[in-house]
C-alpha cells in the first residue's frame, strides 16, 4: 500500500510544478485567447540561465543565480509579445499559432547553440533523502513543493487582493468593457507576460534541480501544461492549478500500471479525451475565478 502512497507523493510534487507551467499558460490564454507554444522555451530558458549564472565564470550560489535568470526569462517572455505577437494580433489566429511554433523552435535551437544538446545538471551535492514514516523524499523535492505553493499563494493574493490583479481578471472577462473603464492594456499585458514567464522559469528551475536540463525539457512539459489548462477550463487560473496536480498524480500513479516509457502518454490521453468530450474543462465548473 505504501508503494502507491509514495507514487502519490511524487505525483503531488511533480503536479505542483506542472501547475506553475499551466497557470502561466492559462493566464496568457485568458487575456489574449491564444495558446503560446513558445511558453515551452520560457521553461527551458529559465533553467539554463540559472545554470549559466551558477556555473563558472559567474558561479554565483544557486539561490542568487535564480534572480537574474528569472528576470531575463521575463524579458524574453515580454519581448515575445512585444515584437511578434502584438503585430500579429490583428491577423488570423492561425498565423499567431504558427508564429509561436516557429519562435519556440528558434529559441530551442539558440539554447542548443549555446549549451549543446546533451544532458546537464546543476551538480548539487548528492541530495540527502528525508525519510518519514516510510516515505522517501529528497530535500529538493520538498523545496519544489514549498516553492510551488509559495508562488501559487503569491498569485492568489495578487489576483484577489491587488487592483492590478482584478484589472487583469476583468480584462480576461470582458476586454472592451475593461478598456471603457480605463484599464490600461499595455500595463495588463506587461503583467500577464511577466507573470507567465516568471512562473514558467520558476517551474523550469525547480524541475531541473530534481532531474536535469535538456533542450527538449520545455516542449515535453508544455504538452503536460496544456493538458492541465484544458482540465481546468482554458483561462481558468485555479482550474489550471488543479489540472496540474491531477496530471502529476495521474502520471506517477500510472507508472504502477504500465511501463515508465508511457509516462507522457497520460497527459496525451487526457488532452485527447478532454478535447473530444469536454473542451470547456472539468475543474472550470468548480472554481469561479477566471
Amino acid at each position, binding site marked *: 500500500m505504501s508503494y502507491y502512497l509514495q507514487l502519490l507523493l511524487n505525483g503531488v510534487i511533480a503536479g505542483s510544478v506542472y501547475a506553475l507551467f499551466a497557470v502561466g499558460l492559462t493566464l496568457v490564454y485568458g487575456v489574449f485567447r491564444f495558446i503560446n507554444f513558445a511558453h515551452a522555451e520560457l521553461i527551458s530558458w529559465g533553467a539554463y540561465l540559472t545554470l549559466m549564472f551558477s556555473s563558472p565564470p559567474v558561479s554565483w550560489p544557486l539561490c542568487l543565480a535564480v534572480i537574474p535568470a528569472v528576470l531575463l526569462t521575463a524579458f524574453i517572455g515580454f519581448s515575445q509579445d512585444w515584437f511578434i505577437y502584438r503585430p500579429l494580433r490583428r491577423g488570423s489566429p492561425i498565423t499567431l499559432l504558427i508564429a509561436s511554433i516557429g519562435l519556440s523552435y528558434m529559441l530551442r535551437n539558440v539554447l542548443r547553440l549555446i549549451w549543446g544538446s546533451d544532458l546537464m545538471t546543476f551538480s548539487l551535492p548528492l541530495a540527502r533523502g528525508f525519510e518519514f514514516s516510510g516515505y522517501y523524499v529528497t530535500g529538493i523535492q520538498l523545496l519544489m513543493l514549498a516553492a510551488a505553493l509559495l508562488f501559487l499563494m503569491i498569485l492568489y493574493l495578487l489576483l484577489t487582493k491587488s487592483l492590478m490583479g482584478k484589472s487583469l481578471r476583468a480584462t480576461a*472577462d*470582458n476586454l472592451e*468593457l475593461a*478598456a*471603457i473603464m480605463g*484599464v490600461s492594456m499595455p500595463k495588463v499585458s506587461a503583467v500577464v507576460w511577466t507573470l507567465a514567464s516568471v512562473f514558467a522559469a520558476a517551474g523550469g528551475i525547480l524541475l531541473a534541480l530534481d532531474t536535469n536540463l535538456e533542450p527538449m525539457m520545455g516542449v515535453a512539459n508544455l504538452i503536460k501544461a496544456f493538458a492541465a489548462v484544458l482540465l481546468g477550463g482554458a483561462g481558468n487560473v485555479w482550474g489550471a492549478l488543479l489540472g496540474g496536480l491531477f496530471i502529476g498524480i495521474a502520471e506517477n500513479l500510472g507508472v504502477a500500471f504500465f511501463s515508465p516509457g508511457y509516462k507522457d502518454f497520460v497527459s496525451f490521453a487526457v488532452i485527447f479525451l478532454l478535447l473530444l468530450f469536454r473542451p470547456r474543462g472539468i475543474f472550470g465548473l468548480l472554481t*469561479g475565478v*477566471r
Partner: protein
Amino acid sequence: MLLEVNRITAGYGHAPILEEISLGVETGEIVCVIGPNGAGKSTVLRTVAGQLTPCAGWVRYAGEDITRLGIAERGRRGLMFIPQGMNIFPNLTVRENLEIAGLLISGKQARQQAIRETLDHYPIIGRKKDLYARDLSGGERQLLALSRTRILRPRLVVLDEPSLGLAPLLVNLIFDEIVGLTRLGVSILLVEQNARKALSISHRGYVLELGRNRLTGTGSQLLQNDEVQRLYLGGEPADEANAMS
C-alpha cells in the same frame, strides 16, 4: 451646450449608417434618441463614446473637440459610456466590479469611500457585494452597471438601451434610477427601444430614421406626435412613398 454632435457621418466599412446626424445635450438634461431598428441609434452612441471614429462631422464635449479622443480619455473627462448588454464583469464579485469602475478615481481612500457610499445607496446589490456578478439577476446587473455613475460622478452618462431584455417592472426600477442620477448633477444621453418610456422621462428627444435626423422636440411633444408611431409601424400610403424614394 455640454455635448454637441455636429453633422456626423459614420459607418462600418461599406455604406455609412449615419448621414449628417446632429444632436445636443445641455447640462442637467435627459436627452433620448429613438427610432425604428436600423436607424443608427447605437452607432450615434458609439461615436459619442469613442468606440467609433466618424468619417465626417465632429463631437464637442464641455467646449473641447473630442472627435478623435480615446475612450479612456473621455472617461477621465467625465463622459461615461454604459454599453448595451454585457456591461458587467461576470467572474468578478460585485465589490470587485465597483473597484474596477472606480479605477479612474485617483487615491485609494477616495475610491473606497465612493464604493462604500454606492453599496449603501443600492441595498439590493449591497447585500450581494461578495457574490460573483454572474449570479445577479438581469435587473440587478443593470443596476450594478448604472451604479458606476454614482462612483465616478461623471458630468455626462451615455446609456445604450438599458431596458433591453428586462421585465416591465424592472424597467420602471431602472428608469427611476436614471431619473435619480440627474439629482447628482449628471446629464444623460439615452438610446432606448422603449420609445414611450424614454420620452416620458426625457426633457428633449431626437427621432432618427435610416441614419438621418427625422424629428426633434421635447419629450411630451414627441409623445403626442403620431408621426413617431407611423415611423415605427409604417403609416398611410403618402408616408410609404417617401420611404421607398
